[in-house]
């Protein structure tokens, strides 16, 4: 509020003349603050959106622990670990892209970090597609009439319970992957803006806010990885 009041007192400072300042804001600081706050509120919304899936996971996991462990063993933890590392690396490059705009590094550095982020994101998605194909080959697509596990289901676990894990797996990772695809779609115009030299220490809201989104997607994966891939690691050979 104080900055706002000062801006009124001093009239429109030189900062206000920035080409990226929207007409209804008083100064760049107010605009940046509003953008970041909006992004955070949006992330709060996203947390609740994924929250519904986590609730379903929790309820069914509590009821069918053995089925979930057995089904979890069908996921390859090595691939999962690799993908986790890839996503964390893409978060790092994104953080560095934000840093590059904050300190005003050249547009090549900015675009370079963003391109690395996109590349790592695409690697993640490619691996994910490969995993999905694996599940298809093993008959683990949880659609009525399609679900037909080739490996035997352990005793005391029904097909329905087994399927329960796999629709959760597909819904959770699918929604996560969808967020990454949307992310790649959003960063493309931001990269273009960066290439045109639009971002500077004074104005880099889009990069910063996209970074927040990308890190949020990373956090979701940080939870999905142990919940989906690592349930039955110690249980190997037990069924």
């Amino acid at each position, binding site marked *: 509020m104080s900055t706002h009041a000062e801006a009124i007192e001093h009239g429109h400072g030189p900062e206000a003349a920035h080409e990226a300042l929207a007409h*209804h804001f008083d100064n760049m600081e107010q605009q940046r603050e509003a953008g970041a706050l909006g992004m955070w509120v949006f992330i709060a919304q996203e947390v609740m959106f994924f929250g519904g899936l986590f609730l379903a996971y929790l309820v069914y996991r509590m009821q069918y622990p053995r089925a979930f462990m057995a089904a979890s063993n069908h996921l390859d933890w090595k691939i999962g670990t690799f993908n986790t590392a890839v996503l964390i690396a893409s978060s790092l490059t994104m953080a560095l892209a934000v840093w590059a705009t904050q300190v005003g590094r050249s547009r090549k550095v900015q675009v370079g970090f963003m391109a690395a982020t996109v590349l790592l994101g695409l690697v993640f998605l490619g691996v994910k597609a490969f995993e999905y194909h694996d599940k298809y080959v093993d008959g683990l697509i949880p659609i009525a009439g399609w679900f037909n596990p080739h490996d035997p289901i352990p005793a005391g676990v029904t097909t329905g319970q087994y*399927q329960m894990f796999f629709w959760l797996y597909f819904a959770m990772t699918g929604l996560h992957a969808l967020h990454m695809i949307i992310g790649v779609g959003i960063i493309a115009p931001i990269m273009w803006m960066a290439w045109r030299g639009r971002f500077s220490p004074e104005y880099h809201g889009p990069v910063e806010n996209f970074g927040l989104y990308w890190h949020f997607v990373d956090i979701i994966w940080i939870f999905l990885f142990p919940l989906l891939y690592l349930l039955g690691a110690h249980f190997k050979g037990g069924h």
Partner: protein
Amino acid sequence: MSTQTTPEARAQEWRGRFPTVNYLNADYGIKSWLLTKDHKRIGILYLISVTFFFAIGGAYAAAIRLELLTPLGDLMQSHTYNKVFTHHGIMMVFFFLIPSIPTTLGNFLVPMMIGAKDLAFPRINLLSWYIYMVGGALTFAALLFGGVDTGWTFYVPYSTNFSNTYVTLAGLGIFINGFSSILTGLNFIVTVHTMRAPGMTWFRLPLFIWSHYATSLVMILGTPVIAITILLLALERVAHVGIFDPALGGDPVLFQHMFWFYSHPAVYIMVLPGMGVISEIVATHTRKPIFGYSFVAFSSLAIAVFGFLVWGHHLFVSSQSVYAGMIFSLISFVVAIPSAVKVFNWTATMYKGSLSYDTPMLYAYAFIGLFTIGGMTGLFLAALGLDIHVHDTYFVVAHFHYVMVGGQVLAFLGGLHNWWPKMTGRMYPEGWARFAALVIFVGFNLTFFPQFLLGYMGMPRRYHAYPPGEPMWQVLHVMSTGGASILGIGLLIPGVYFIWSMRYGRFAPANPWPATGLEWRTPSPPPTENFAVTPVVTWEAYEYRPVEEMEVVGPGAPDAPAGGQHPANRGVETEEQP
């Protein structure tokens, strides 16, 4: 200024005094409206579309009441009736009640009340209207193609495994519409945090802003959960993966938990903005500061928070654990406290106030009484034992219509009357408006009060027939249908005179009531960026003084004498009735 001048002369004078360019005439043509980023124009767009969906929902309500006029299902078959009440519920809840006040009055007033030029994200604001229209169009298409028969609650497993109607399409429309709600809430929260005028501290904000802030919280934290729930419902319906299917190990009650996690707080999305409107009207039309400002402000937040903790009271008879039921029942009673704080404080505000009988205040009187009845009967339903008796009966129907229609719709109408001069620059006809308010009040009570009795006697909701051997039931149903006819006519009257007033109404001064809010310190209708100069707030909220001492400020800063004293005090305003 003499009070003898004719309206025409005064209009000329005001047109001369105020900037002739305002948000309505700043730009012309359909494109200037469909691509506008002005929060006021978007508010008007929303007003038109919300009214459209309200009319559709109202038509279905008329069909329901006609069918129940006689005990036998002679007007339509049970399957048709299922669709009719479902369409009524879907249209009213998702496309009228939830967006109505925040997207119309809220869009129009939130930036003006805090002294901002626009909402923080004008493009997102316009996007939210388009999302709303796409969602509405998809759901409306589902109704036209053949309809939905699951009830607005979409309970599984009926909606997933058995219903062969357009559940997925309607669900998709509601899913999409949810994002419009989320974006509106996001915009409000960011705007209130970052765009307040200098000096506009949190405790100088009008209570309308507090209630919209609380509403936005619910929109942002609740709506995504209904979105994912509908997504899962569609997934289950299309792919039959067993999410809610007991045969595959799923739990249908999980759907109810997820559904009501949003849909109960959604009740507060509907009624909280109405409470904000009533707070403004009560202060303005009793010419007193709201009694216990901070209590009313925080009660909005308390309602928003506690509203999230009570959803289980919809599941008392759904095989939910009785122990969870006890917790939910207890917390449901707690929500009554902040609601009661508001009612008591409005009443205390009126005490020894300068009460007016202008139309907005008539709606406020009605709101306070009807909301109290609706709220108190809510406590009946929150009680574990009594709920088993009245669960899914007309008692429930009457209860939520008292809150939704008696509360929200009347607040919406009251707010429209209160700010109509600001929105259009024209006065509505006061005599007709008072008459319509009376008709609506009578019609409403005649419609819904008999339903309490019917429900208590055992009339279930969602039935298209009832036993002819119970003469009392038909008497009450006939009363209800008669009341609904009166209510329908009452609702048409404002529709007619509002449109009439846009061309023939008297020109409205900047501050017709005269009120203290910032939105009244700019011309009617306001210029595109609301204020010629960013206002600096040096006064507390609702600093009312006698009308004669009220310094009403014209265009520009509050201290500028440009507007000076203008003739729009109450005596002048009410003497010329058409």
